[in-house]
């Protein structure tokens, strides 16, 4: 039985991802053809043996709730422990960093009632495949108060802390002035023993559209693909029952990642194509990210474009962004005239 309680703080707003998070929380931004951001951290927890996971959502959590449901797809629909969705009773005034005490305080009972001794606190915008058990082992060997998970020199904004200390920090926050777990780690003046655990695998910190695009393209590198999707540590997601991808006689596809239910009749190079996407004849899609159910008509040319869900590009349209500044078509957009940047 795992000694870890998992907490996903899905309340953080990532300014740079605004185009993709207008109608959804950052945690439910689609990624890698069939996943949402939160699938990765949630699967990491489950694969590391964590049996109790609490998700703290912010506003606009409908798409997130719809995606997570009872937690069944992650095997978290349990009689004992399992998945807990803990929305705020009220929105705290301060805009906090990861592990906001004001937010955790609203569900303090959850922490007090849980039998696990340690808490793993994560955000929803870092995408990686990590063994949390190993991080806990380090935490215990070095007897840290808080262990921060890092990748190279970057913080992953993921922390391990003893539950009793977390409860103390939450209850004493008025005196201590610390506002979050992340805040404690980053303040120089205190007596806590803060350590780090270095994760050497691939980690994508999604803090801007450029980062989102860069890491999407990185998926096409088999070494990255293998690090994010190792066979023994699968990434789970909501199941959609799409048929296999259909390639027509006119399709030409190279260096791309394609999800189920897609129908490809055109030309696709170096792109990420999600579930149930349609790409028409004589269309050229290069260096693009196309999300669920978007439809590209016939004779279109798209380069460096991110198409959010349900976007329709009508016949003959040309859309071009650049590697540094990909063009983003927001959810539900219909494009009919040529735009060039």
């Amino acid at each position, binding site marked *: 039985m795992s000694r870890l309680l998992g907490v996903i703080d899905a309340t953080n707003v990532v300014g740079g991802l605004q185009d993709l998070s207008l109608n959804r929380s950052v945690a439910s931004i689609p990624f*890698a*053809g*069939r996943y949402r951001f939160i699938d990765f951290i949630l699967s990491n927890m489950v694969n590391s043996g964590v049996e109790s996971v609490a998700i703290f959502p912010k506003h606009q959590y409908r798409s997130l709730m719809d995606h997570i449901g009872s937690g*069944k797809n992650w095997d978290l629909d349990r009689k004992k422990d399992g998945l807990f969705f803990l929305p705020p009773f009220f929105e705290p005034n301060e805009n906090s960093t990861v592990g906001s005490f004001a937010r955790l305080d609203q569900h303090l009972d959850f922490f007090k009632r849980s039998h696990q001794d340690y808490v793993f606190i994560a955000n929803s915008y870092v995408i990686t495949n990590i063994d949390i058990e190993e991080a806990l082992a380090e935490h215990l060997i070095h007897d840290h108060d808080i262990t921060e998970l890092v990748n190279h020199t970057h913080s992953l904004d993921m922390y391990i802390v003893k539950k009793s200390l977390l409860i103390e920090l939450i209850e004493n926050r008025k005196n201590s002035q610390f506002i979050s777990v992340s805040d404690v780690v980053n303040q120089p003046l205190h007596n806590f023993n803060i350590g780090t655990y270095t994760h050497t695998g691939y980690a994508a910190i999604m803090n801007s559209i450029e980062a989102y695009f860069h890491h999407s393209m990185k998926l*096409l590198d*088999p070494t990255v*693909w293998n690090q*994010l*999707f190792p066979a023994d540590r*699968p*990434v*789970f*997601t909501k*199941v959609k*029952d799409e*048929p*296999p*991808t*259909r*390639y*027509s*006689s*006119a*399709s*030409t*596809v*190279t*260096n*791309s*990642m*394609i*999800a*189920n*239910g897609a*129908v490809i009749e055109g030309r696709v190079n170096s792109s*990420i*194509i*999600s579930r149930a996407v349609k790409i028409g004849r004589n269309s050229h899609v290069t260096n693009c990210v196309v999300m669920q159910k978007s439809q590209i008509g016939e004779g279109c040319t798209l380069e460096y474009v991110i198409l959010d869900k349900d976007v329709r590009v009508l016949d003959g349209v040309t859309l071009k962004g650049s590697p540094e500044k990909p063009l983003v078509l927001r959810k539900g957009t219909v494009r009919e005239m040529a735009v060039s940047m």
Partner: protein
Amino acid sequence: MMVKKKCVAMLLAGGQGSRLQSLTTSIAKPAVPFGGKYRIIDFTLSNCTNSGIDTVGVLTQYQPLVLNSYIGIGSAWDLDRRNGGVTVLPPYTEASEVKWYSGTANAIYHNMKYIEQYNPEYVLVLSGDHIYKMDYSKMLDYHIQNEAEATISVVEVPWDEASRFGIMNTNKDYEILEFDEKPAEPKSNLASMGIYIFNWKALKEFLEVDNVNEESSHDFGKDLIPLFLNEDKRLMAYPFDGYWKDVGTVKSLWEANMDLLKENPGLNLFDHSWRIYSRNPNQPPQYISHHAEVKESLVNEGCFIEGKVQHSVIFQGVKTGEGSLIDEAVIMPDAVIGSNSVVRRAIVPEGIHVPDGITIEPEDNSSDIILVTDELIEKLRKDVTA
């Protein structure tokens, strides 16, 4: 006390399917993979759930292990229900006797208690061996409207093939007058699809009569239907005009897979209003490499394609190496096709590993389909090194 159900489905899934050779040495025919993602039984189970039939007994016998764990509690087909849902019904022992199912009707006879629990008006008897999409609720409406005791779904087959099927001779109103099992000289080309709706009261009565008849083979087509006819019960044929295929041989299994690749396939897997459900393998999207070429094919998640794929059906988790060619082939889950290997007009079963530089294809001008086995690969490998 169980809640009464209007109609209970009994799905016969115990068939060995021995003509599928090595594909069915360790699994029953309904568990054979089909269409890049599915197993044959997915079509019947999805038809049930899409038709609003939520109580399904699945009768297993031959090699049930894979089938039992595949069906589980039925969640994949939304058949995990508080009342009803899916129930796997294996043969069982009673007192001192082990009751193997000796025929299709006998299998139902032994599970009458299961049906009784729901006290249904109608029983739908299905076979888990066929590929088709059908709304059973429409067939039930037809059965009720025609005030039949039994209704049998039929499909028109080419006249020259009719002698391979159970043929229904009907009048112009589709009332069944005669049943001919594999007639040498067929009088009709309406073949039974192995889909029956019975009034439960009548079926129960005839199952009991049939059970004590020592000369009976306890088969629906051969024994039960003639019994209904002898007693002058009203039997109706329900004409079905959609895609229906019995994938009983290696060739027909291959053909049915190839049918999916047509421009407008008879069986549309992309119809969201009649989805075919299956246990999802949960693998990442497929990766098509720089050197790959994929045309006229269905490819499922988790594949890593580095070679050329044309006119083929590729299941989940398949890997194909650089310089390989897959042409008019069916590659089942987790198979690996090595670099510079050729697989043409063949079925590669689940988990088979075709090493680098091997060519698997039928002899010139042969219309055969090769079922790849480890023994065949061993032989070809020796030929290459010799």
